[in-house]
């Protein structure tokens, strides 16, 4: 059964409206995209939607009480809350270096959570 879904591409700030023809979980046709990212996004969004996660974790003895972190790779959308739960358990100790891995392969998603900035000690 083919059906047409409307999606908004979130790959860049342009936000193209995509018309995606799907047959079950398979994308048959994409239109409305202005670059290749649109097609990739549509295929991924239909079969395995993923999102980048950006949040904060606590840090002991830091210049600030929190250090911002983000997922270097997008994580499956249904797992966002679970990943956040994992990150709530984390407490780092300053100094923290930008890019240092906070959680490796979080919940087996293949995504590493890394520190977004240096956090010097107090």
């Amino acid at each position, binding site marked *: 059964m083919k059906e047409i879904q409307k999606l*908004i591409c979130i790959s860049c*700030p342009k*936000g193209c409206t995509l018309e995606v023809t799907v047959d079950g979980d398979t994308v048959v046709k994409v239109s409305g995209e202005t670059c290749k990212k649109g097609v990739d996004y549509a295929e991924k969004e239909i079969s395995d939607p993923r*999102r*980048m996660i950006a*949040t*904060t974790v606590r840090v002991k003895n830091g210049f600030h009480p929190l250090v911002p972190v*983000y997922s270097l790779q997008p994580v499956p959308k249904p797992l966002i809350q679970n990943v956040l739960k994992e990150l709530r358990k984390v407490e780092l100790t300053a100094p923290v270096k*930008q890019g240092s891995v906070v959680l490796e392969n979080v919940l087996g998603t293949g995504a590493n959570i890394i520190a977004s900035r240096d956090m010097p000690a107090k």
Partner: protein
Amino acid sequence: MTLKNVYDVVVIGSGPGGLAAAVAAKKEGAQDVLIIERDVELGGILLQCIHNGFGLETFKEDLPGPTYAERFIKEAQAIGVEVLLDTMVLDITPQRKIYAASKRNGFIEIESRSIVLAMGCRERTRPQIRIPGSRPAGVYSAGTAQRWVNVEGYMPGNRVVILGSGDIGMIMARRLTFEGAKVERVLEVMDYLTGLTRNYVQCLLDFDIPLQLRHTVKRVIGNTHVEAIEAVQVDAKWNVVPGSEEVIPCDTLLLSVGLIPENELSRKAGVILDPITGGPVVDDNFQTNVHGIFAAGNVVHVYDLVDWVTEAGYEAGKCAAAHAIEVRRKEHHLIPLIAGDNVRYIVPHMLDKRNLEGNEIRLQMRVSKPVEQPVWLEVHDKNNLITRRAERYVRPGEMVTVVLKPDHFAEVSKADSLTIDMVLR
């Protein structure tokens, strides 16, 4: 760091515009570049924008705000940009004098050959949109809440209504949801989304946060703290649609209702502002109407993407450096003419040495006292006589002219100043 009295380029503010301007100015050959920042660290608002989406144009990467900022901070440090943190600029004059104050240095007075204004923008507040109702705690601008949640570690509340569908509002809707709050509603008075569509998808749709267009807050309810807000539908002229009122229980109302360039300092410096953008009127070098004062980033107009702010900062910084270098060259070639023994004054007061190459320059002066016997008027650089003119007598009522000739260029070019004395023949 020892503070200098004079800088080539001083940049006010260290957000993306200021950082790019400082880096570009230094790379373009400005000698001393100083950033003055009122916060305790460099980076500006990027530091609280922990979400990704920055740098797709500049780095072809999808970075969070702090990472984007850090790349420029590290570059600025590596190439020797000087920094004054925790310092508030109080005043800037059209002559490019900067007055600032800090706990560490007290009152500071700096002169700069070029200035780049990069103060960014400020959020529109509740009084500016005149929301009726009581004045309880719990009404905040979205950016304030963003700083609390992302930098300082406080939650503004647990049940939230957001007024305005700007990007900061939508991003805070997701952020507060991540931290366990319930975002009840996003209200937008216009009949379209004011932020980016991608943020509607990934911040609101993803978390089933309802957005109501053509809706606003009719009043805030609560005495000491927000207890609810009354939402209402409006028509195309923003008139309330009677009967559409809905009380939404909540403890927090966030306002994401627009940004205004921050230009108090620009005004003091005599910079002309555009009433539409709220920022300085600039030329294609990002120079304002005040010679040597440049402006870049959200202080000029509110941008949609940080990458364009960086681009503007680079351009402003580059042009600020070129201006400073030109001013410095002129200062280097410009020497004072000093009235010595029995000379009351000389016009011109200063001399651009380069002009002597191929041209005569007439120095005109008056003496202080009459001398009724033959005299010399001697032009010298310290002890080195450059030229002199003979007069049979001198009187204050009669002007004396001494001509510098291209033959004198070689010697004059080595001088830091020229003095003219009257001596007896």
